């Protein structure tokens, strides 16, 4: 069979351009975009945390003073938003992990819902460990 197929001249066909607001057209796309933006809030939080840590080079009083600044309403609102985005990231990340890394037990694949639940469990455990370690070891 000859390799030369009859093809339409694409330049003559109508090809719609995707609008820049494509991600507003479908709930799934909007959720995707929010998930992507969660990385921004996580990064900002970590930078703020780094700044808080850097106060320690001026002594514990500077650290405590900065922490007090973070108790203002504006910062509390920021951290609420950041926490919500961080939780969105965690939930979607754990969902993705179940898809990307299938877990085999013998001949069968572990159902994704189970992997997801187990990862959530691990997250709760890790968070609890961090919380306890901080409560015990803080200065």
């Amino acid at each position, binding site marked *: 069979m000859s390799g030369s197929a009859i093809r339409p001249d694409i330049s003559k066909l109508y090809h719609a351009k*995707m609008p820049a607001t494509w991600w507003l057209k479908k709930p799934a796309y909007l959720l995707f975009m929010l998930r992507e933006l969660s990385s921004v809030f996580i990064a900002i939080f970590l930078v703020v945390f780094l700044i808080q840590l850097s106060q320690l080079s001026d002594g514990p009083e500077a650290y405590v003073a900065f922490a007090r600044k973070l108790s203002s309403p504006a910062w509390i609102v920021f951290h609420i938003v950041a926490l919500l985005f961080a939780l969105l990231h965690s939930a979607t990340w754990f969902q993705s992990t179940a898809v990307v890394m299938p877990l085999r037990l013998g001949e069968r694949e572990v159902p994704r819902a189970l992997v997801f639940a187990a990862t959530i469990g691990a997250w709760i455990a890790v968070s609890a460990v961090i919380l306890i370690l901080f409560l015990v070891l803080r200065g």
Partner: protein
Amino acid sequence: MGEGIEKESNMAEPNVTLQVTRYRPGKDSAPTMQSYSVPYHKDWVVLDALNHIKDQIDGTLSYRWSCRMGVCGSCGMMVNGEPKLTCAAFLRDYPAQEIRVEPLANFPIIRDLVIDMSDFLDKLKSVKSWLVRKVEKPLAEGEYRQTPVELEAFHQFTQCINCMLCYAACPVYGLEPEFLGPAAIALGYRYNMDSRDQGQDLRREVLGGHHGAWECTFVGECTEVCPKHVDPAAAIQRTKVNLAKDWFKSVLLPWGTR
């Protein structure tokens, strides 16, 4: 109790309005919508409605279809903005009495509901969607044997019917037409994971190249719309993992053989 469309008829049978894209290349500068009134039958699919239009109302309407049972992949179109096989989209599942039928998104339109799929076919070829052997096995040596576990490693991804609904759902393909796309990458993965295949090296350039798997941002809509539950999103992410493993091996152990 009924939306109008659900009522059994001892009254005059309600009709459904189909808004269908019409486009004639060279004559129309842009697609327009044409309205058709089609009788409602609770066991009809959108394809039945289109066939009714073509048979009884307007023979000039052009669209693709074949098996009408969800295995050939020909009848993919946008129904109320969602990529669907029109042979699997039941009129009764659309409660409003108006249904919008448009050509598959992200593809150039040849005419009416017919899109140009040559880009997809080129991409399919580029991932070598067939068994590649480094060493051919002569017939005398018998068949390739596979255990059930070996089959399960790729079986799900063999179900692709090339309907391209995933390309219509993928915003990355919409924004970047050079992107390999869900089905092509999933099929590359399918052959890479097939124990009979020895073509991983040949596919790596395309799968791991500039417009390959790395361009995917895991939106996940491809998997949502796939009528055969292929889960191309999973195939693409697993391809990324394999590509990354290969890359680190080649960088950290350059003397090693793959």
